[in-house]
């Protein structure tokens, strides 16, 4: 009796394994940091667009900022036997096991936008420190190397926050005349950063000459607070990312500048590199940095 069940199970198993035929299309699994973030969504859009033109099937999943979830998603990509994986890591250390597992399974993996401790087969992104560096240089130029700045930080401890902070500090060290009056987190959030700016206007009044916000959402919050207090004319505000709202605000003359991180190019290059890895072509460069652009009126 038992044997019969066992036999039945074996037949079932064989049937299912046969049924799982691999299609001719290249399948690439994509795990994104968070689809609630406009910038990340732009990267995902670009991935989808270039996948459509190059006949690639994408499986895009959202890790919702959890590196644990991200590792699990990559594990399921491995068991689905995808041809390549594109990873937009949640965290530098904690997402590393995802890269290790893919490499061990022999599936090519490309990191996009941010990096992990374990080295993937290829990386496409931008150097976060550089964007902050460019933003601060703009401020330094505007103030003539002398003046008071406040900095609105991203979510404390995240790679982007740490790198952007590092980039900003390099410029601050270069110009001893620039004084960092205060720094505080706005948690990447427009409303939080607006409240923070309102508080700073109270405590520093007219001393603030420039604001560096570590992303556009927070830059826009600061601009709103300054406009309400009728102080925008005296304060120079620069932020990083180049999201749609920020560009519009720059054209309207409210936000002074944003540093554009090219989401479209990051997405399309990541897909191109992943495809080349699938086709086993030798890569010209496995560490691809997309340059930033300054967007001013």
């Amino acid at each position, binding site marked *: 009796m038992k044997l019969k069940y066992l036999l039945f199970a074996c037949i079932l198993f064989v049937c299912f394994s046969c049924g799982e035929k691999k299609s001719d299309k290249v399948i690439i699994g994509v795990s994104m940091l968070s689809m609630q973030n406009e910038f990340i969504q732009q990267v995902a859009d670009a991935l989808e667009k270039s996948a459509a033109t190059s006949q690639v099937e994408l499986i895009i999943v959202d890790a919702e900022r959890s590196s644990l979830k991200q590792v699990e998603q990559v594990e399921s990509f491995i068991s689905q036997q995808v041809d390549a994986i594109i990873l937009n890591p949640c965290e530098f250390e904690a997402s590393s096991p995802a890269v290790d597992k893919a490499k061990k399974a022999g599936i090519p993996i490309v990191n996009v936008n941010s990096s992990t401790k374990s080295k993937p087969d290829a990386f496409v992104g931008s150097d976060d420190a550089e964007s902050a560096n460019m933003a601060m240089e703009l401020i330094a130029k505007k103030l003539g190397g002398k003046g008071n700045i406040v900095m609105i*930080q991203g979510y404390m401890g995240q790679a982007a926050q740490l790198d952007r902070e590092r980039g900003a500090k390099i410029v601050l060290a270069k110009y001893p005349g620039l004084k960092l009056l205060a720094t505080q987190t706005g948690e990447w959030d427009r409303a939080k950063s607006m*409240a923070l700016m*309102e508080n700073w206007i109270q*405590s520093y009044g007219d001393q603030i000459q420039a604001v560096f916000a570590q992303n556009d959402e927070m830059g826009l919050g600061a601009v709103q607070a300054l406009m309400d207090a009728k102080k925008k004319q005296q304060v120079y505000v620069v932020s990083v990312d180049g999201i749609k709202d920020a560009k519009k605000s720059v054209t309207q003359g409210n936000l002074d500048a944003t540093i554009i991180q090219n989401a479209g190019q990051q997405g399309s290059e990541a897909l191109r590199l992943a495809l080349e890895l699938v086709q086993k072509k030798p890569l010209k460069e496995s560490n691809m940095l997309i340059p930033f652009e300054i967007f001013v009126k």
Partner: protein
Amino acid sequence: MKELKAFFTKTPTGGIFLALILVCALFSSMTSRFLTPTNISVILNQVSVNAILAFGVTFVIIAGGIDLSLGSLVAVCGVVVALLSQNNEYSLWLAIIGTLIAGIALGALNGIIVVLTKVPPFIVTLGTMTIGRGVALILSKGRPISDLNESLNFLGNGDLFGIPIPILFLVLSYATCHILLTKTIFGRYVKAIGGNEMASYVAGVRVNRIKLYVYMISGLFAALAGILLTARINTGQPNAGLGFELDAIAAVIIGGTSTRGGKGTITGTLLGVLFIGVINNGLDLINVSAYWQQVIMGGIIILAVVLDGLYQKLKMNI
């Protein structure tokens, strides 16, 4: 003097009032920028969203329930009002009324599930919290909604007779909720079912109906908070309001409302909201680092509630 002593010893909010005065004194001794008319206006402006949320959920908590879906409701309603007032398609009033109705309907959904299924409200609203966040993302396609009606921006950042409009909403909501809770039969029923649901039922209180109403009130005020938040930042953000439910519930509890239901006041909630708002503002003014702000905030909240407990005990002995 006698009245003052009576205020501290008779009213349940005396403890938190004392704590509020204490932190205000502390901050004004540390910076001269704290106790200025404009900074007070800034604080009131900043707490308006949390206050309005907290007033609404005070009814739910007094009735013995809880509403964890507040933050998500703020996001959904914020997105709805943004969509309705985008590109001047509809008049502002229509957008606002539509959003308020949406808030009441979502609150009613919470209430209906709680009443019909008898599943603990903690679980029901935890579920609707997740659903709400998803709905906000679906409606907005995951992106901030901008290009809003100019007059909506005025609601969030303009002023009337020199008073910022969010503060007017705060005052109006306070008055409405305070009267509703203390001067109406409905208010008495809310306290009754929170105190002893079975006894109220036996005494002829329509328990289910009152429960449904309190969730609808919570939804209505969440919608109002969502409208104000969207107006203040001039965009509808699907990820707005994350964690707002915790701030609102914390304010209610700090304000002396019992977590077991049955008693509580809107004035207490207002003081709880101000307490949190003053600490947030003060820590920014004296420029405490972001890491320490969280530690200090948590510490002060626990301390305030502990002190309030001791104070209540002391009061019994007077």
